[in-house]
């Protein structure tokens, strides 16, 4: 049993002793990091990020509400009359639809990409095309992770899994990383990434896939 005095001594000792815990071994590499920050910001700025512009976001939301309204209207027309309190297109639902559209398109692209990656790897090809595409998809994955599309726990889990896979592929060096590429595909198989991805994409042509995508 420790007395208060001992506790105080311990706390003082601990604060001193812990100064060595994960102490940076060298001064802050300011210039090195600044150069990387500038390069990364330039890279991100060069990417088409039209989806993030406010006017387009509102435009998309309005279009989505319109599409949803038409869809609901047509659906209602085929239902039995006299159902009180039918579905109403709320602001939340329109927002969700926008993200569902984005998420479904992203999932379809990622499925195509990963399927191609695995097939080419089996044929003995690992080229720079894959790393570039993986980086692009990785950026989209991160945007979606920060969006309401990731509110659904299953969708979030899938996005996090895809983020890992894409991050690993984006690090591959063309033609020199066969072993790592094999490990990535083993990992994908072990965690059933492609089946999970496919089951998250609703069947049917792309416009219809947006319903229930997440």
């Amino acid at each position, binding site marked *: 049993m*420790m007395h208060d005095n*001992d*506790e105080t*001594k*311990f*706390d*003082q*000792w*601990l*604060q001193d*002793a*812990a*100064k*060595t*815990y*994960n*102490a*940076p*071994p*060298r001064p*802050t*590499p*300011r210039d*090195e*990091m*600044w150069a*990387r*920050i500038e390069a*990364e*910001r330039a890279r*991100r700025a060069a990417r088409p990020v039209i989806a993030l512009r406010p006017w387009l976001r509102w435009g998309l939301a309005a279009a989505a509400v319109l599409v949803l309204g038409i869809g609901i209207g047509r659906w209602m027309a085929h239902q039995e009359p006299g159902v009180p309190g039918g579905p109403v297109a709320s602001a939340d639902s329109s927002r969700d639809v926008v993200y569902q559209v984005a998420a479904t398109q992203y999932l379809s692209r990622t499925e195509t990409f990963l399927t191609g990656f695995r097939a080419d790897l089996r044929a003995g090809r690992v080229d720079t095309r894959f790393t570039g595409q993986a980086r692009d998809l990785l950026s989209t994955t991160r945007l979606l992770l920060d969006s309401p599309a990731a509110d659904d726990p299953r969708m979030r889990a899938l996005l*996090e899994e895809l*983020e*890992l896979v894409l991050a690993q592929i984006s690090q591959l060096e063309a033609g020199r990383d066969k072993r790592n590429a094999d*490990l990535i595909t*083993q*990992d994908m198989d*072990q*965690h059933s990434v492609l089946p999970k991805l496919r089951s998250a994409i609703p069947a049917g042509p792309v416009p219809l896939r947006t319903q229930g995508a997440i």
Partner: protein
Amino acid sequence: MDERDLINRVRAGDGIAERALYDAHVDRVYRLAYRLAGDDALAQDFTQETFIRAFAKLDTFRGDSALSTWLHAITTTVVLNGLRKVKRFHQREADLEAADGVTGGPREAEPDLKARLRQAIDALPHGYRTVFVMHDIEGFTHEEIGVALGVETGTSKAQLSRARAKLREALADFAGEWVS
């Protein structure tokens, strides 16, 4: 230059002001990232991401708290999310190695105090370790920690107290070191 002026200049797209803002805060951001990550490459990645996000979101900074507090909130979010991903990545690597039958031997015990202290801190629950590192090592106040982690000041104090208690327990056989 006044910080508010600096922020306004950054918002206006002044590159020199951006660098000045970065220079004013990068040491503490990097040090915090390093303390929490324990790895130079990760600390640099987290620092880089912190400033990229900060510059992108500076328009949303309302000035309710100091800019440093706001930056440290971004830092802790970036670092803690990043560490979760790294942990999962390492878990997968371990899974793959196990599947391949390539497993490393057991790590040798490190009996010295410094190593034991390190192990004990590493073994703290995530929240306790973060508060302990921020308060006892990096000198943040409980108010700053509360803002950075989005918790009440009392929660920060309670977590620090529990962290110290766990460390006392873990390092009990080194009692002579501090009692003497």
